[in-house]
């Protein structure tokens, strides 16, 4: 066991780590945007909007991520007539895949807000979109933070699958180093540690964020109404 193989290859692996981060950051951002749109679409009272959203969500949720990656990398070029680069196809695949899960998180977040609050907001003269923006989404978001971050953590780990289509991210570079140096234990332990540290940080940060957003509520539980202080 030698630490040497790691230190020697740190600059090379670091380049891969940057690609992993980019892959994750771009896919997470896009998935959040599209997931919110699809989640709201699935709740729409207009069937031409809700049915396609439902079909998309259900198909993707019943498909392994690796199939989505292959499908986009190998089939899209056939359909459009020219090849696409590994990085953008990986981003597309992760976005298509994760958006469906985020859509479900958004949908259940929105549905958890009591309908009475929506009626109160609407009856005060707010429009549907104002009600969404000021009443429903802020509360839904607080409830959505834990499952959303769980989804983001999954996505971060799943970016390692992009190595299959040749994206030079952390895992792919690790396998290249391994093929050169034959130090599987050291290399893969180190890479696993890197994934773990990032994921662990994300989940800690999520906990903090959730707490901060619930600050009103915490305050409330302290001073909850009792007949004595009425």
């Amino acid at each position, binding site marked *: 066991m030698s630490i040497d193989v790691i230190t020697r290859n740190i600059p090379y692996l670091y380049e891969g780590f940057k690609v992993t981060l980019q892959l994750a950051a771009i896919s997470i951002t896009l998935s959040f945007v599209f997931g919110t749109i699809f989640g709201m679409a699935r709740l729409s009272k207009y069937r031409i909007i809700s049915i396609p959203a439902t079909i998309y969500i259900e198909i993707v949720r019943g498909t392994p991520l690796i199939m989505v990656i292959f499908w986009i990398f190998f089939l899209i070029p056939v359909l459009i007539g020219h090849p696409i680069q590994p990085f953008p196809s990986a981003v597309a695949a992760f976005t298509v895949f994760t958006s469906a899960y985020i859509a479900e998180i958004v949908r259940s977040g929105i549905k958890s807000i*009591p309908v*009475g*609050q929506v*009626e*109160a*907001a*609407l*009856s*005060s*003269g*707010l*429009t549907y979109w*104002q009600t969404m923006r*000021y*009443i429903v989404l*802020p*509360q839904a978001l*607080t409830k959505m933070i834990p499952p959303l971050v769980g989804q983001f953590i999954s996505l971060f780990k799943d970016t390692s699958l992009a190595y299959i289509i040749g994206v030079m991210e952390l895992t792919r570079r690790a396998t290249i180093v391994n093929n050169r140096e034959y130090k599987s234990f050291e290399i893969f332990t180190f890479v696993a540690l890197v994934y773990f540290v990032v994921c662990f940080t994300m989940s800690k940060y999520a906990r903090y964020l959730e707490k901060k957003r619930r600050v*009103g*509520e915490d*305050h*409330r539980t302290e*001073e*909850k*109404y009792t*007949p004595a202080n*009425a």
Partner: protein
Amino acid sequence: MTSHQQSYISVCPHCRQPITPSDERPSLEVVQADSAPAKPQRNGEPIISFRQVNKWFGKLHVLKDINEDIYPGEVVVIIGPSGSGKSTMLRCINRLETIQSGRLVVDGYEISNPKVNITPVRAEIGMVFQHFHLYPHKTVLENIMLAPMKVRKIPQTEAKSIALELLKKVGIPEKAEAYPAQLSGGQQQRVAIARGLAMRPKIMLFDEPTSALDPEMIKEVLDVMKALAREGMTMVVVTHEMGFAREVADRVLFMDGGSIIERGTPEHFFVNPVEERTKAFLRQIL
């Protein structure tokens, strides 16, 4: 303050146009008893008019040929057994429920026509629910300020002073910065009333506002509602509080099975009701 009161008296609720939010609106002050305006006469147009209104939930016929006119300044109390359609009738007034046939005109808008945009009509109607439905992620002040700022586009400082004024009026100015969950039920319902009043509405709808409250808190809410009634607010109130009906209602409607079975003054109702079903109902709850 006096000028506010005068503005209230001089502005006929009917002359205020729904499209000009900047025109003079009634004062938020509690009008002193000695300067309280006389109840408006029942002349001119009704502000709420039901004509042959019918509503079904699927196969369930919940409103049957409702005909009713409510005039500006009137306090109308709707009573009747559970499931008789009281809430549904109330909720039709701001189109939280849509009707399937008949004509319903509110504040000059034919809201039974699905093409008529309901949002500006809703801005003129405050609604108070049995279970308050305050926004739990916002403070009391923010709950009250939201609609004036977002619908009427009133600047924040002005919205805040309106909200503080209203909190004084409902008797809980010290709760401005509290969150709804920190308040008792009675306090929450008073905030809900203040939230409804913040839009300076022409009509206030109440759906069993005291039914979810502990007995000791009912009075504080009814007192606020009585003050509002004395100021000349047009109110439609679904309630089982017969004392309230007797004291402030101009008219009482008794509903059963989706129809208005009997209507009249509180005196008529509590002294000599005509219909057998009304008598049975009153015997049961009085």
